[in-house]
């Protein structure tokens, strides 16, 4: 069957209405069109597309279930990748960056740990490091993909992994630094915790960027 542009648009609109994510839409649309193009009969009706979806995809419910499974699977694999990249920063040669950062931190800590300027800069540095993944997510989801009709299935996984650092920092803040902090610690220990947060925010940022560049770019098309 040769489909004209109006018929293709009709199929596209239908597939759009039964899928939640761009990747699923592309896959189902391509499959349905490929199947209908092989059909022997000439007369087109949308029920033919519905039939392909029912027989080849197991129906609409099955498509939604599969989207949910893929979404969860991607979240799991991105999280594993992020953790692995974080661990990789402790291997040679990436560990050299960690060591230089650690030396810098120790130098400042034992030198002028209580200097207000250094403490403020460390807090700002930590915040920037934790915000960059989030900004990357916002850029990808709302600026780069603004013309896309559907969101990417990877956005979910990206959002939660991007928020991981900020969520952890918020917990640490409420636990140790807030006015009514749950744990009362001495100023020297608080500075040490802050340096540790700075150190790990750097690890998180580097790991996130590596994960984003190596895997996400391929999956987020």
């Amino acid at each position, binding site marked *: 069957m040769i489909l004209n542009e109006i018929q293709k648009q009709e199929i596209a609109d239908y597939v759009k209405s039964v899928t939640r994510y761009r990747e699923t839409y*592309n896959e189902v649309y*391509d*499959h349905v069109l490929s199947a209908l193009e092989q059909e022997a009969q000439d007369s087109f009706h949308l029920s033919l597309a519905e039939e392909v979806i029912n027989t080849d*995809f*197991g129906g609409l419910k*099955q498509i939604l279930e*599969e989207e949910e*499974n893929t979404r969860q699977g991607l979240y799991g694999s991105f999280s594993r990748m992020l953790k692995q990249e974080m661990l990789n920063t402790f291997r040679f040669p990436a560990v050299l960056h960690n060591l230089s950062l650690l030396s810098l931190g120790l130098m400042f800590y034992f030198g002028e740990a209580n200097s207000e300027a250094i403490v403020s800069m460390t807090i700002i540095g930590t915040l920037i490091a934790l915000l960059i993944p989030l900004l990357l997510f916002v850029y990808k989801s709302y600026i780069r993909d603004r013309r896309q009709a559907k969101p990417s299935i990877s956005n979910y996984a990206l959002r939660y992994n991007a928020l991981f650092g900020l969520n952890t920092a918020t917990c640490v803040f409420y636990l140790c630094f807030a006015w009514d902090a749950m744990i009362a610690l001495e100023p020297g220990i608080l500075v040490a915790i802050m340096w540790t947060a700075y150190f790990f925010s750097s690890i998180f940022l580097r790991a996130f960027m590596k994960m984003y560049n190596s895997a996400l770019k*391929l999956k987020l098309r």
Partner: protein
Amino acid sequence: MSINSDLFKGTLSTILLNLLEQHGKMYGYEITQKVKAITDGGFNLKEGALYPALHKLEAEGLVETSSEMVDGRMRKYYELSSDGQTAALNKMEEARAFIKSLQLLLNLKPALQ
């Protein structure tokens, strides 16, 4: 004769890995048609079995994907990763051993070497 698809359960990933190993880069609909052609219409990948299996292989890192614009629409291709190539060989070995046992169990005349 159409074969009961339940008989293929558990071997779908082996079938997919083997197909990708033999034919390289393939897309979803192409895989269904290839299976249909090889089995002379005896086995149809229906009822949503194909894509969940492909996505599972992708999540396991055995299959890699790429997208291309074909006839004005985005087409997703699947191909074996380096881990997938090893897995395909192992799965085929497993399948051969299974078929051999099945032949003995059901007292079938050997048709496969």
